């Protein structure tokens, strides 16, 4: 199993000034796998994604992507290496149209989706291709953000709470999209507070509390303990 680990985090700690927000986090994501990071607000989930992306730099420990240690590499080098970050605010550029947003980032891998593929998988984006970024609904923005990194050909998607603030039917659609991404062989590291949603898409789960991984579960035991976890997360 060792050779097909897309992402390997070893002993990662992160700080904001004096405040330590991640302590000795170790986790891995394999090729074509969907892994969630579940935890309450402030558990350090977003910081972990930002650290992997190189956007948060006050860290210790190692992050390996596709076998290469990322070290102090810049975020743009990481993006070009195949990391696709979808931030929790979706990161759509308001001053650009849907198609301009899609075409903005460079294609970094030959497996990147063509515009036709994107529009086929996300018909709603095809309909709205000339709308400005601001005119999209939350769900459409989320789809655009995901489609944008798929077009780049990212090998690992870092999704930060894609279900947040979306209507249940849209959340289901996002779930279906994540399964399609997985089927296409792209790995996903998903940050979630929505336990029910996480159980429908992921193979494995890491429970994050106060900056530490407190448990690592496969999806079966995760579902078996769903109510316990819901109480634990205070939902």
């Amino acid at each position, binding site marked *: 199993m060792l050779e097909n680990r897309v992402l390997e985090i070893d002993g990662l700690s992160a700080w904001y000034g004096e405040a330590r927000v991640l302590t000795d986090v170790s986790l891995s994501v394999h090729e074509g796998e969907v892994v969630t990071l579940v935890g309450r607000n402030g558990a350090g989930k977003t910081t972990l994604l930002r650290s992997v992306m190189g956007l948060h730099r006050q860290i210790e420990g190692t992050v390996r992507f596709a076998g290469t240690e990322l070290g102090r590499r810049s975020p743009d080098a990481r*993006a070009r290496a195949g990391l696709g970050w979808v931030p929790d605010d979706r990161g759509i550029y*308001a001053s650009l149209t849907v198609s301009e947003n899609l075409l903005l980032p460079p294609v970094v891998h030959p497996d990147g989706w063509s515009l036709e593929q994107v529009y086929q998988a996300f018909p709603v984006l095809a309909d709205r291709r000339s709308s400005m970024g601001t005119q999209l609904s939350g769900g459409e923005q989320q789809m655009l953000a995901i489609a944008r990194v798929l077009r780049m050909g990212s090998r690992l998607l870092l999704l930060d709470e894609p279900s947040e603030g979306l209507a249940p039917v849209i959340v289901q659609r996002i779930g279906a999209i994540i399964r399609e991404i997985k089927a296409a062989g792209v790995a996903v590291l998903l940050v979630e507070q929505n336990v029910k949603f996480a159980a429908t898409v992921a193979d494995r789960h890491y429970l994050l509390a106060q900056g530490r991984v407190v448990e690592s579960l496969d999806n079966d035991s995760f579902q078996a303990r769903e109510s316990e976890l819901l109480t634990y997360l205070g939902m």
Partner: protein
Amino acid sequence: MTHPLKDTSDTSEASDTPEASGSEADIGTALLRPGRRNALRWIMLAVGLVAALVLPELVYPPVAMDIAAWALFAISVDLLLGYTGLLSFGHAAFWGSSAYVTGLIAIHWGLPFPVAILGGMLFAMAIAVPIGYLSVRRTGIYFAMVTLAFAQMIYFIANQFSGLTGGENGLQSIPKSFFGVESVETDSFYFYYAAIGLILLGVWAAWRIIHSPFGRVLVAIRDNPARARALGYDVDRYKIIVFVLSAGLAGLAGGVFAISHGFASLEELNWTTSGKVVLITVLGGIGTLWGGPVGAAIVVMLEDRLASSGFEGTGIILGSIFVVIVLLFRHGIWGTATDLLQRTMAGRRDQGD
């Protein structure tokens, strides 16, 4: 939009504000369908061209030339300020150094003025490489201060090398050689038409840059540098490239200015010139491309009228206008005008549907 004066050099959450509100680029065209947006862009370009061609019929030709040069200078600043979110407070370095180099080439080698201006422009771009390299690592007020410091260095160097630059006296009697065409070389009306081509080329280049994929990356960097990085763009490299391009346009404008006046003075390198061009750009409206020419027309003509009427306090009038515009119309004259037009058109469309 990330405010140009806000330091976003750290990669913390501060640089990661979501842009829920519309950004200022293409603010007047944001609500239009892209087809009409494109058509409108071309119409604007045509209107700009016609305006440039009839200008010397309406105002005294040397003043028209000044307007055109300052318009391109302001566009070069807008490329950085409005489209990349970088406030350069040292653009006189490129305008002025090109003015001197253009003058030196014209005086010592007697080359036709377009060639001299090309030389000045290339010189401005060459010095912009190290200056850009060292300043784009900073943002907001720090970027402004670093560019100002470099510009002041160039100013003092020009003052020191008075054997070459004429020092306090400036560079006098720059000829307008133009392949022996006497009307162009002696009559400012014909000179305008010979030189305006260079200015229009510069405007065209800026227009192309803004509406290219490269321009969209610039807007992405302006709106959120951290996100542009996460999408795979080496933000500093893009900033250096646009800085050098902007310096080239400023140099082109400065070269035309020097030839048109027949001299290059230290004033062209002074920080007041950097300040004036920022004032013109903000007055016209940043992130609009056409704000610069509008601002330049107003400022240059006002200065000309006030000076010829013998009024001494031009600065007081300009300053007051600036304060009023900035306080009342945040998007500048052009930005506010297109905003209004936009709202009227949107209103009419709503009624029609």
